[in-house]
């Protein structure tokens, strides 16, 4: 059974259009105009148990709407959707026992309650038997290091502290599928790294399926082997991260710092016949762009050194996922 299976999944919203000015407001009173917006347009998606999938797209691309359909919050306008074998909206109460949800921007905890009381209440809400609940929760508390936060009300926690508690909350009933909507938003680097490590661990140990939306492609690089990219409600890419990098990453860049200044033509001559580009960055600094697959970095460097170019420092750079995604959105996607 697939963890998530969607066919031609679509969500439309009726948006009320207001007219301009006061007189327009009066006309709206009598006769409203509505416009239909397709937030998610016939997407097909299938995710196998144990996969970690990154779901990315610009603001308003339809990410949150998809997640809300997948978690049973919204009813799809049309299309087929099965998550963990359930129809998420129609069989909501049974279905939500099998998933965990973290919305980075919104707490899943009760604002005024201390963390442990939230946990206690959730144990009752999910009807988790005591003998199953205790050891599992204790482990969560240890791994996420939230022992000393337990007696604090949620509203007094810092964002990073809250996020760790949110993760424990979402896993309290040991779901097989975890939805994370911007789980690292606003967190500092160390906390981010902790959370990523934690997610990797639970995925490995419990084979938990994870679907993650994020603006921080570092999350995706660290966690997901597969990315699904959304633009204006359509899936424009669904495949592995490495392929995306290979085809859109524009290859690698070698930054050289030389002992003395060279003429660009001198340098160009060293790599004659190879499809690389040179650029002068500063007086002693040059950049070589090595595209895709046609040529390897060692070959290029070998040539340069062979010709007696005196290199002092060297750096190898690769396009970050961020740059790749920006580029795709700017230029439009042409690969499937």
């Amino acid at each position, binding site marked *: 059974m697939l963890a998530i299976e969607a066919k031609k999944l679509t969500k439309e*919203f009726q948006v009320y259009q207001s007219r301009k000015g006061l007189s327009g407001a009066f006309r709206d009173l009598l006769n409203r105009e509505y416009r239909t917006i397709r937030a998610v347009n016939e997407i097909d998606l299938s995710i196998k148990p144990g996969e970690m999938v990154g779901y990315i797209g610009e*603001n308003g691309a339809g990410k*949150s*709407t998809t997640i*809300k359909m997948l*978690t*049973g*919050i*919204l*009813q799809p306008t049309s299309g087929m959707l099965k998550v963990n074998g359930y129809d998420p*909206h129609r069989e*909501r*109460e*049974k279905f*939500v*026992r099998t*998933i965990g*949800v973290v*919305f980075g*921007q*919104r*707490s*899943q905890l*009760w604002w*005024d*309650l201390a963390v442990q*009381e939230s946990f*206690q*209440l959730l144990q*009752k*809400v*999910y*009807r988790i038997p005591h003998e199953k609940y205790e050891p599992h929760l204790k482990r969560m508390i240890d791994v996420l290091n939230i022992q000393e936060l337990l007696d604090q*009300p949620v509203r007094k926690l810092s964002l990073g502290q809250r996020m760790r508690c949110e993760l424990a909350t979402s896993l309290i009933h040991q779901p097989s599928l975890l939805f994370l909507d911007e789980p690292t938003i606003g967190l500092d680097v160390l906390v981010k790294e902790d959370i990523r490590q934690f997610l990797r661990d639970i995925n490995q140990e419990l084979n938990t399926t994870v679907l993650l939306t994020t603006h921080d492609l570092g999350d995706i690089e660290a966690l997901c082997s597969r990315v699904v990219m959304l633009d204006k409600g359509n899936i424009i890419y669904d495949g592995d991260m490495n392929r995306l990098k290979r085809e859109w990453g524009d290859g690698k860049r070698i930054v050289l710092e030389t002992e003395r200044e060279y003429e660009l033509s001198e340098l160009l001559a060293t790599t004659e016949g190879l499809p690389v580009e040179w650029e002068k960055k500063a007086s002693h600094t040059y950049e070589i762009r090595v595209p895709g697959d046609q040529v390897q970095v060692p070959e290029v460097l070998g040539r340069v050194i062979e010709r007696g170019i005196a290199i002092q420092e060297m750096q190898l750079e690769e396009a970050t996922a961020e740059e790749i995604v920006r580029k795709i959105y700017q230029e439009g996607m042409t690969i499937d």
Partner: protein
Amino acid sequence: MVQFQLLWEYFKQYMKARLEYRWDFISQFFTDLMSQAINLVFILVVFGHTQHLGGWSRYEVIFIYGYFLIPWAVFTSFFNLWGFNDKYIIRGELDRVLTRPVHSLVQVIMESMAPESLMGVLTGSIVMGWAVWHLPLDWAWYDPLLFIMFVLGGVAVYAGIYVALTSISLYSDSKSDIQPIVYNIGTYGRYPVNIYSKIIQFVLTWILPFAFVGFYPASYLLGNGDWKVYAMLTPVIGAVFFSLGLYSWNRGIENYKGAGS
């Protein structure tokens, strides 16, 4: 049964969180008490000028008011849905509720209950007791059972109407001002309906049947047979209106558009 256990858990947590804001708790308690006292004084002032109101004596009207306070208190404790639009729709808390395996309305009710209003049951009983002291009433053994049924029916009438009004927010996220209006009409049920015009009587019986919350059952308990049929209809009307409320809520959840991003 599980739901009641859950209600109890929420209740405990609620009281804990609520007691942290001590002054808020106490002031809410006294505000309730004050408004109940003012209503009582109002009745007493009216009877300072007249002996009868639509054929009802002073203590009978006080009895009706005291009775009304009981379903009212239960309703205001458990269906404290005033902030629903702000908290659940605009701030998006409904998303969280919908990812939990309990009926959404049950969760919302549990999260917004105000158990301190249950004190109204006590005040109502005292007011009723005071009236009964001065009235020659003769109750049968089954009257207490009817009383409980009437109270539950009355609560269901209120609950159904307010749940239906609250679920408007699920269809359209704009604020509606209809709630306070209906809330005010709701308090009409605490006086004998035969003092109102025919149209208002009709509205209070069939459209917004608040007369079933206070007057009809209370008049039966006062031994007045004129409205006996209506009194007996209380649980039925309650069931019908509560079902309507629940239906419109469930439809609303299907229509829910989600908050923001």
